[in-house]
C-alpha cells in the first residue's frame, strides 16, 4: 500500500519542510539526499547498523537531542521533528568543537563514516551538558559506540570526541527539563467522555448493524470505540508476535527471501514474513496512535499464548511456519468474503477455500476484517457528535489502509504460501513435513518465565529465552512510551526487535527452540504517570544489562550488547 504523506512536517537545519505529497514509504535519509539534496548524510548499510546516516533529532526545545538512524525511519514517523544533518552542524565557517577535534586528531581516513561520528559526537556533547553526574565514557560509548568505521582503529575518533564531550560536562545546563511537551499530546475536548443524548445503538443504522452482525456494547461511541480499538490492538500485537515467531522459524539462507530482513521497506505489499510482521507493527501504531489521539492510553497488552479469542475458530499460539499455521494466517487476514465458501465464483477459488477449511478443520466465517468495519462505523458516529475532536478524515484513511493491507496484501501473501506459488517456494509439495526442502525448523515453545521463586537456570536455552523476553518487553514499553511522545522511540524499539531479539530468536531456532514472547504480567506502563513509566523502562533496560553479564557465555555472536546501553542513554535524556 503506497501512502502519501500529507500530514507531516519537520524542521531540517532550521528550515521548515512541509512534506506535502512526499511518499510515506520513503525513509528520512533518502528524503534528505534525494529530495532536499543534503548528500552529506551518507548511507552505508540501509539497516541502521553502520550509523553513517546518523542525524541529530531534537524532540523538544527543552530536551537534549538524540541520534537517529535516518535510513530506518519512514517519513510518516518524523512529524514535528527538528533534524540537524552534517550540513547544519557548523555555523558558517565556524566548525563545531567536535568537527575541530576530529580534524585535529586526524581521526578519519576515507571519511565516509565521519559525518555520522560528528553528529553522534555533537549529540553526546549536548547530552553530557544536560545532566550532571553522568559518566563520561558511558555517555560517549552509548551515543557513538555503535558507529562503524572500517579504516581506522577508532582510537582517534574516540579520543577526539571524548575530549570535547568532557569539556561539555563542566557546563551546567541552565535549562531545566520540563515535563512532557504539550505539543505531543492530543488536544481533545473534555466532553468526549460524557454520555451522549443519542445512544449509539439507535444512531448506528440497522443496515450497518445487520451487515456487520454487530450490536454495540456501549451507547457512548467513544467508550465503544475504545473497546474496539483495544481489541484491535491486541489482535495486531498478537499477529505481530506470531509472525515474528514464524519468521524466525524459517530456514536461512535457503529461504531467506521468505523470512525477510530488517531494512526499511519501499512501497508495495511485502513478500516476506518479517515484512508482514513489520506492517503489523504499523497497524499496531495506527490503532494506538488513534487511542492516544482520543486521549486514551496506548494498549500494548495481550493475553498469554495460547488463547482462544471468540473471533477465531482455533487456538492462537506461537507456531513455526507450516501449512497449518499458514492456513490460520490466511484466515485471520482474509475479508469475510474471501473465505466464504458460498461467495467463490471460480473453480480455483472454490478449491482454495475448500482446502483451507480442510486444513483448518472448521468452516466458521472470519470476523477480523469486520472489526475494522465496526471501528470505522463507530468512528463515523463519533464524528457526527464531535466533528472537531480529531482529524476524522485522516484516521478514517489510516484505518482503511490497515484493513486493506490485511484483507488484500497480507491475505494474498499468505495465500501464495498456502498455494505454494510464492516465488521462494519450489511448490506446494514443500509443505510435506517429510520434504527435505521443508522451509521451517520445527520449534518447541517453552515459557521463559521461571516458576515463582525459582531462578533462571544457567543454561543456554533458558538464558536466551529470558533475555529475549526482556528485549520483547522493552520493545513493548518503548512503544507505549513512543505513542505518548509522537513516535520518538520507534527507532529504538525496532532496533531491539531486529537486533538482539532477532539474534536470540535465530540462535534458539537453530536448536529447535522458539522464542516464547511471554506476556509481562505487570504490563508495559505500570507507573502512575509518564515519568515513572520512563524510569521503569530504564529499569527494564538495566535488567537486560544484568542478564547480558550473567549469561554472557550463551550470547550469540551477532548479539549486540550496545543496544540497551544506547537506548538507556536516549531515555535518560527524555523528560
Amino acid at each position, binding site marked *: 500500500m503506497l501512502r502519501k504523506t500529507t500530514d507531516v512536517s519537520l524542521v531540517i537545519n532550521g528550515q521548515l519542510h512541509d512534506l506535502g505529497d512526499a511518499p510515506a514509504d520513503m525513509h528520512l535519509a533518502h528524503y534528505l539526499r534525494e529530495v532536499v539534496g543534503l*548528500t552529506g548524510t551518507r*548511507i552505508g548499510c540501509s539497516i541502521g547498523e553502520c550509523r553513517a546516516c546518523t542525524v541529530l533529532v531534537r524532540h523538544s526545545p527543552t530536551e537534549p537531542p538524540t541520534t537517529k538512524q535516518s535510513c530506518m525511519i519512514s517519513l510518516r514517523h518524523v512529524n514535528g521533528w527538528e533534524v540537524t544533518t552534517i550540513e547544519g552542524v557548523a555555523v558558517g565557517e565556524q566548525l563545531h568543537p567536535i568537527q575541530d577535534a576530529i580534524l585535529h586528531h586526524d581521526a578519519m581516513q576515507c571519511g565516509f563514516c565521519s559525518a555520522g561520528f560528528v553528529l553522534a559526537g555533537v549529540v553526546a556533547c549536548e547530552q553530557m551538558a544536560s545532566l550532571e553526574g553522568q559518566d563520561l565514557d558511558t555517555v560517549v560509548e552509548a551515543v557513538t559506540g555503535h558507529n562503524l568505521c572500517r579504516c581506522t582503529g577508532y582510537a582517534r575518533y574516540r579520543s577526539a570526541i571524548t575530549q570535547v564531550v568532557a569539556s561539555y560536562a563542566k557546563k551546567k545546563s541552565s535549562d531545566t527539563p520540563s515535563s512532557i511537551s504539550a505539543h505531543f499530546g492530543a488536544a481533545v475536548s473534555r466532553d468526549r467522555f460524557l454520555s451522549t443524548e443519542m445512544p449509539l445503538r439507535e444512531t448506528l443504522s440497522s443496515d450497518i448493524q445487520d451487515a456487520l452482525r454487530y450490536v454495540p456494547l456501549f451507547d457512548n461511541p467513544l467508550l465503544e470505540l475504545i473497546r474496539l480499538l483495544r481489541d484491535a490492538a491486541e489482535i495486531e500485537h498478537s499477529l505481530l508476535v506470531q509472525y515474528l515467531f514464524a519468521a524466525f522459524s524459517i530456514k*536461512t539462507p535457503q529461504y531467506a527471501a521468505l523470512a525477510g530482513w530488517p531494512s526499511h521497506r519501499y512501497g508495495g505489499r511485502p513478500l516476506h514474513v518479517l515484512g508482514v510482521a513489520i506492517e503489523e507493527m504499523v497497524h499496531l501504531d495506527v490503532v494506538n496512535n488513534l487511542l492516544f489521539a482520543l486521549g486514551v492510553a496506548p494498549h500494548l497488552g495481550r493475553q498469554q499464548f495460547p488463547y482462544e479469542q471468540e473471533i477465531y475458530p482455533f487456538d492462537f499460539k506461537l507456531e513455526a511456519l507450516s501449512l497449518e499455521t499458514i492456513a490460520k494466517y490466511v484466515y485471520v487476514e482474509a475479508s469475510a468474503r474471501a473465505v466464504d465458501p458460498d461467495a467463490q465464483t471460480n473453480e480455483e477459488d472454490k478449491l482454495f477455500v475448500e482446502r483451507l477449511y480442510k486444513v483448518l478443520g472448521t468452516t466458521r466465517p472470519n470476523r477480523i476484517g469486520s472489526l475494522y468495519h465496526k471501528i470505522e462505523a463507530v468512528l463515523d458516529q463519533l464524528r457526527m457528535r464531535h466533528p472537531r475532536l480529531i482529524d476524522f478524515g485522516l484516521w478514517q484513511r489510516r484505518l482503511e489502509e490497515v484493513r486493506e493491507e490485511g484483507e488484500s496484501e497480507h491475505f494474498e501473501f499468505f495465500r501464495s504460501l498456502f498455494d505454494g506459488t510464492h516465488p521462494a517456494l519450489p511448490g506446494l509439495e514443500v509443505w510435506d513435513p517429510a520434504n527435505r526442502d521443508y522451509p521451517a525448523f520445527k520449534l518447541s515453545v517453552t515459557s521463559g518465565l521461571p516458576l515463582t521463586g525459582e531462578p533462571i537456570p544457567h543454561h543456554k536455552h533458558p538464558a536466551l529465552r529470558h533475555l529475549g523476553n526482556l528485549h520483547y518487553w522493552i520493545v513493548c514499553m518503548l512503544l507505549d512510551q513512543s505513542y505518548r511522545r509522537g513516535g520518538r522511540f520507534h527507532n529504538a524499539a525496532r532496533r531491539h526487535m531486529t537486533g538482539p531479539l532477532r539474534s536470540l530468536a535465530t540462535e534458539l531456532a537453530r536448536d529447535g527452540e522458539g522464542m516464547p514472547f511471554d506476556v509481562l504480567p505487570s504490563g508495559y506502563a505500570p507507573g502512575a504517570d509518564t515519568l515513572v513509566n520512563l524510569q521503569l523502562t530504564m529499569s527494564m533496560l538495566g535488567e537486560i544489562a544484568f542478564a547480558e553479564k550473567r549469561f554472557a557465555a550463551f550470547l550469540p555472536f551477532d548479539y549486540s550488547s550496545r543496544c540497551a546501553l544506547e537506548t538507556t542513554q536516549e531515555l535518560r535524556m527524555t523528560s
Partner: protein
Amino acid sequence: MRPEVAPFAAESDLRKAKITGGKVFASDFRVKDIAQQLGWPDECAHALIIRTAFIDRPFVRLNVERLGPQNQPFRTITADTLAEHGLDNTAGTATGAGMLQLCPPNRVPQYLSQPLAILLFQDFLTFRRAAQELREDRGIVSYGTPTPIADERSTAELLTDWRLLIAPAILSTQHYLLSLSQHQLSSQFDHGHLRLEKDQFTRADVHDPVANAIYEELLKMAPGEFCIETTTFTQQVDPAFLEPETGLAGVQNGTLTMLVGTQAPYADLKDIRKAVAAGLDNPAIRDVKILSVDLGGGFGGRDKSPFVVQLAFAAALSDRPVRLAYDRFEQFQAGLKRHGSGVHTLISAKPDGSLDRALVHFVFEGGAELNLSTPVMQLGALHATGFYRFNKVSANGVVTRRPVPIVGSMRGFGIPQVVFNIETAIDKLATLKLNRDPIGVRRQNVLQYDSDPQKADRDIAGTPLCFHVANAEVCDRAAEHHLWKNRDEIRREGAARGLYCGVGFAGCMEAYGTSGDSQYAAVQLELDGQITVWSQSVDLGQGARRSLGKVAADTFRAPADVSLGNAEPFVSFAEQLIAKGTTYGHQATAASKTAFFHVHVLRQACDALIRLKIFPGIRELVNFDTSDEDLFDAWRSDGFHVGEGKPVSLSTIAAHLDRTSAPRFAIAHGYFSNGWSRATFMDGERSFTSFIDALGFAKEATCQATLVPTQGDPIFPPAHSAVGKTRVPRSAYAAGGHLVVVEIDPKSESLRVTAAVSFLDAGDAITATILHGQVEGGFQMGLAHALFEQLPPASGQDRFVNFDRYIVPRASDVIAIDLETVLLPLPEGGALNELQANIRHKGAGEITMTTVAPAIANAIAHALGHHDEDAWPSALPIRYKDLKIRSRPGA
C-alpha cells in the same frame, strides 16, 4: 581517440569537506552537479541489476511485467541487448576464463549473483520500489528445470588432493622450489620458472630432474622429532568498505563520461573501452572519460571491480545519464571478496634450531574469474614460508574457481592466509620440538638482506634480498619488549583472576608494489607561487593526497594542491615515450603505493623543476651566480634570501619564468623493477642525473611537454638474472610483526585482546598521523579477520547479508586494547641501499594487518599452556568454542 581520467575534486585536503557535508564521494554526486559542465540533462535514469540466485538451472527469461505497473523499467538490458548493440560482454573478465558480465538467456549462470539484466528506471522512487519488489522476489526471473549438481568439495578435500598435486588443469597454479644445497642448487632466479607438466617439474620449459628429486625428497617429510605438520584454514572475507559502489555515467557528443571512485581508473578505462567498443565498432561512443573521485574505502575491493563495466553498459544503452548505486545487500552479494584458504605445511629444523626444510601446499578458494585471483595466489606462494631461510623449500599454490561471487584483490593480497599458517607452525616448532623461545628461533632464521647479492639471503624465488628489510630488527625489538619478557608473569597474573592469559608474536616480510611499477608525476609552479601536483594515485583513505601535497609543500616551502587520478598530462607524455619505443606499461596501479612509488617520482620531478628551471630563473632575476646548494640554504618560506634586497618569492620567479616563456611545469616517469630506472638528462648545458627514465618540461600543464634528452639510454636494473631469465617477482620488502596479549575468560566464554604492539619497517613517516592511522586501522582489520568476520557459506545466494550478521569490530572492541607502535628506522642508505635511489619510505598499508591473526593464535596457545599442537587455533575466525582448553588457568 584520447581516453581521459580526470579528477573531479582537486583540493589538497578534503577532510573538512568530509565533516561538513561537502561532495566528496561518488555517492554524493547527482547528475545536476555535473550536468552543466558536461552538457547533460538534469535528470538521470537509475539502474538496477538483476542477479541470479541459482547455478543449477538455466536462466530462461525475465518477466518484468510482474513488477507493479507503476514500477516498470523503461529499458531492460540483457546479454542479447549487448550483442545487438555491439557491446562486449566479456570486457573486464579474466582472459581465457570464458566468463561473461551478463548471463545470456537460456544459459546456466556461471556463478551465484551473476548479473542477468540491467533495468533502467525513470526516477528514484520507482527504482527504489522496484528494487524492493525484486529483492522480495516476485518471480520476475524465470528459470528452467534444475539439474542436480555435485556438492562442492570442501577445501580440506581439495587440499588433500593438492598435496598430491592433483588439480583440474584449468586452475591457476604456482610453484616455487628453492634449494641452497651446494650439490643440488635450484631456484627460479637461477634456473627459470617452475611448472608442473604431466606430474613432472620443468624449469624454463625443460624437464628438471634436480627439481623433481628435491620435491621427492621433501615429500618424504613427516612429523617427527624436529618436524611439525600444520594445517590451517582461513575464511572468505568481504572488504566491507563503507561506501557501496556507486557511479554516474552518460554519453554526450560521442563521449562516455563516468564519475566513479575506483582504485584502478586506468585499468578500468581499458575495460570500459573494450566494453563499449569505443572508437572501434560503436559510432555513438568515440571517447571515454573518467571523472575520478575519492573512495569511501577500498581495501583492494575496488581494484578492477566489474561495477564500472556494468555502469558503462547501462550508460551506453540509455538515452540519458545513468546512476548505478549498489546498496549494502548488493555489495555483500556481488562485491569482491578475499580468498578463503586451506594451507598445509611441513617444516623441519636441525637440532641447533636452524630451519632446514619446508613443504607447503595451499588452496585458495577462488570465485568467478573476473578479477585478480591468480596474482593473489601467486603472491601468496611467494610468501608461503614467511620471512625465514630454509635450505630446501617447495611451495605449491592453486586457486580454485567456484560458482560464487568474485574473489580477488583485497588488502593483504594472499599473504595473510599463508602467514597465518607459517607463523603458527614456527611457534609450534620452536615451543614443542625445539623447546626454545619462539622469537629466538625466528631471530636465528630470518632472512637477512645485503647489498652484495652474493652475501644476501634469498627469498623463495631465489631472488637475493639486496634491499633493506628489517626482519632481524623486528624480532630483536619484539624479544626485548616488556610484554614478551614478562609473558609468563602475565600468564600467572591472569590465572590468579581465573583467566587464561597469554602473549604471542608473529612476524613476516611483505612485498610492496608489483613486479614492474610504472609511475608518473608532474608538478607546476603557479603564478601565485603555489604548487600544483598531478599524480596517478587515488585516495581511498590512505592519505595519498595529503602525503603528496606535504612532500611538494615541504620541498617548495609553499602550499600545494594535489590533483589525483589524472590521465592528463600523463597520457600525452606517455604517447611521446611510446613513440620513442619504450616497452614498459604506462598505466600505473593505484593501490597503496603512495609512499614508496608515487612520492619518489614526484620528488624527482620537483627536484628537476627546481634545479633546472627555478634556480636558473633566480640567477637571471638577481644576476647572481651561486650554487644549487647555496640556493637551497637561502630558501625560506617567504622566498630566497639572496643578495641585498627583499627575498625573491616563488611568485616573482614564476612571473619571470612566464614572462620569458620558460617552463614552470615538469613531468617525470620512473619505473621500478628490482630497482628504480635511472638516467642523466641534458637540459642545454646542464646535466641532471635522477632515478627516473623520462623527464619533460612545458611552459605550463596545458602545453605539450618537451622531452629532455638523455645522455645515453636510461638504465633499468636487471629484472631477472642472466641465467634464470625469469622476471624477479618481487625485490622490495617491508618487515613487520605483532606482539599480542590475549585474555580468555572461561566464565563468560569470551576471548579478547588486551594489548598489542605493532612493529613496522615503514621507513620515515611523511605524515606521522597518517602512518599511525594505517597501523591502527590495519590492526583493526587484522583483529576482524582473526576474531570477527564470517560470511554465510552460501555467499551470493544469501542476498540478505548486512552488518547485522556480518560482524566487524566496533569501537568498544578495539579502543580498550592498548596498542603501541614501534617504528623501525631505515639505515642511512634508505630502503634500497647506497647504490640506488635513497628512498626513506616503504609501502606499509598491508603489513600492518597481516600478522595480527597468527599473533593472536600464538598468544592463545601460550595462554592454554602449549599443551599440545592443538593448543594453537587452526582456523579463522577463532571462536571460544573451538579452543582446546585442557587444564585450569596457569597450568
